[in-house]
């Protein structure tokens, strides 16, 4: 018989398919909405954690983009299924810590599911729309084919919007990239649930890593890391964006800025490289 005392929650980093404490020991205390009551401790990612996340995502990326598009689509669809299974849990968490109403919280979950399903359905189609055979003036078969960029860092918006977050995440991995998501305060409450969705969706470990951060603390590290090929900066912080653009020049990072419409083809092609190949035609 339980004593009536609940087991308190611990929210850890989601790294390489596991939930880990983080090597710096840094944490923040989350409170219930508009209250001083302790909700949970959340591990914050340090620069060493970020470095580890990059190693993990870098190792995972070739295998992830090597899967067939159909496979990736199936996994994205499974994320929607897992998310649906966690609806009640996420709603309760959003009400408790973000102060959302039942209706608003439901809309957040719906938004995320819509995004996963949308991109699940695009994964095996977008190449039909963005790749090409080019009509060369000579006897050559010439085709432009899209590929992933590599390890992508996703800095989330300040305001909670699970639909847009899921859309950005899905568009990034849809094209075969691996992703490190840096989630700020308003998203901390769902870090655990999101990690669990990714962990139970047959996603190869390292394809997505989640770090909770605060105040752009890791800005310098991800903007400068040479193995990070792209940064999706969704936060509307002009000063921060300028810094990222400047520090990213060393390895010519691709910096992707927010789009108004989160469910569209262009979201996917934002994270693609295009390779054009030539091959002679003749006996």
């Amino acid at each position, binding site marked *: 018989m339980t004593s009536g005392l609940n087991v308190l929650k611990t929210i850890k980093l989601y790294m390489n398919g596991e939930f880990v404490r983080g090597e710096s020991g840094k944490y923040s205390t989350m409170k219930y909405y508009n209250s001083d009551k302790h909700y949970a401790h959340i591990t914050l990612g340090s620069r060493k954690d970020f470095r580890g996340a990059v190693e993990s995502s870098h190792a995972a990326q070739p295998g992830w983009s090597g899967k067939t598009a*159909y496979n990736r689509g199936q996994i994205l669809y499974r994320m929607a299924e897992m998310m649906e299974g966690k609806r009640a849990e996420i709603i309760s968490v959003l009400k408790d810590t973000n102060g959302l109403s039942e209706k608003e919280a439901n809309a957040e979950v719906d938004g995320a599911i819509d995004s996963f399903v949308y991109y699940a359905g695009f994964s095996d189609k977008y190449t039909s729309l963005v790749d090409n055979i080019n009509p060369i003036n000579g006897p050559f078969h010439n085709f432009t084919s899209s590929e992933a960029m590599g390890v992508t860092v996703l800095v989330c918006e300040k305001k909670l919007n699970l639909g847009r977050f899921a859309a950005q995440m899905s568009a990034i991995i849809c094209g075969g990239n691996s992703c490190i998501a840096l989630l700020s305060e308003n998203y901390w409450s769902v870090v655990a649930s999101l990690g669990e969705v990714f962990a139970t969706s047959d996603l190869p470990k390292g394809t997505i890593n989640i770090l909770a951060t605060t105040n752009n603390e890791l800005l310098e590290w991800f903007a400068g890391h040479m193995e990070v090929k792209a940064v999706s900066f969704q936060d509307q912080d002009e000063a921060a964006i300028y810094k990222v653009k400047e520090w990213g020049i060393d390895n010519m990072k691709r910096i992707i800025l927010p789009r108004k419409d989160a469910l569209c083809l262009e979201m996917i092609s934002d994270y693609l490289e295009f390779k054009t190949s030539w091959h002679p035609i003749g*006996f």
Partner: protein
Amino acid sequence: MIKKTSKTKKPVKAVKTVKVVKAEKKSKGFKIDYSPSLEGTSIVTIKPRNELFIGGKFVAPKSNKYFDTVNPATGEKISELALANKDDVDSAVKAARHAYNGEWGKMSGKDRGRLLFRVARILQERAREFAVLETLDGGKPIKESRDVDVPLAAQHFFYHAGWADKLDYLAPNKKVSPVGVCGQIIPWNFPLLMAAWKLAPALACGNTVVLKPAETTSLTALLLADVFNEAGFPAGVVNIITGAGETGAALVNHPDVNKIAFTGSTDVGKLIAKSIAHSNKKLSLELGGKSANIIFADAAIDQAIEGVVNGIYFNQGHVCCAGSRLLVEESIVDEVVKKLQRRLDMIRVGNPLDKNTDLGAINSLEQLNKINELVDLGKKEGGDFYQSSSPLPKKGYYFAPCMFSNVTSAHTLNRIEIFGPVLTIQTFRTPDEAITKANDSRYGLAAGIWSEKGSKNLKIAGALKAGVVWVNTYNKFDAASPFGGFAESGWGREGGRHGLFSYLKID
């Protein structure tokens, strides 16, 4: 007119057989006895009698008539199917129109997609059940229905579900809308997969459907009706009516059908085209083929042999795009023929439910008789005949795979579609000659090229009059890959972006 099954004809004596001469070897090992490894059938419940699926419910046919459906592996009856007459067809079309004007027509693409995703998932969950039923009903090996038909069908629904809310990408700056009520008639060689190929794109584009499966293989389509109900499709979106030629004709000629899609023989396809020529109905056709498989001397020969085997013996050769004509570069023909003969002897013909069976039953007695007739004709016309020594089961409709080498373009078997495990082999000297011979056909469905030289492959692929070209592989299908033929192999494509256009109006 439903034909009664008749007794099997006695096989005609072989006219000329050339067997490969094996070197004298002392046999020091033993041959494995592949005792039958039968897939259990208890997962499937076959109703003794099946009704029509109209307006979301199973209803008795107005004709009050039923006909038998048989398991070709045994020749025994396994169920009864309803015979839909003109009035039944009318009810089905009305139900489809009602659904189109109602709930379905108003549904968003996103929601249509959700329903189709559900169908894909349910198919994956009930995969074994569908695979076993497909084998029982049609005679194809369980290995194929389990590993090819059912997964591809599930993929087809999954793929098209994703298009439902993205159709605007197909025609930027234009208005895209469905065509309306679609009448779809499918063949008996891939019953479930053909149903998926027809239903998925039509529904993704917002149409409603009346589907007529082949009269010898309707059971998996009827089981699909179950899945559509389980997934929550509004009544009347999908209607399934069973019957034979007359039922199909009634559907084709019904005035309130906006589009007809047909997969089957070229002869019937032409009849259909004729009967609706004076109407505004849209028509897509996927017809017969006599596809060439071309092996060059610089091919990966052993893999080419496998590809040829897969090309003509997969699904007992009941494949519209089967590589039924082998064209071999003359310098390597002896070796290729020898390897093929050796390979033929290792093909296991047997009970389709046996996991070790490679080649199952011929789909019907009618088809078996047709194959026998044509092979007899082939033997009369000459050429070197070789047939697999695989023993055949005593009951049921079976045919051992065979080949005719040293034939030419003039031989009948080289020109007409046999739709059975019969391969013809001729030679060529140069790539130009290969192309000419490959294109020498009224059909234009598929072709195969075997060579390790990339530039040659690309050039030949460009020159072949075929809607599908397989290079260094054969009989590969994917929901994202448009499939269809040139010339008398049909109109339109199925699968991929191109496959959607025949189910849309774009203004």
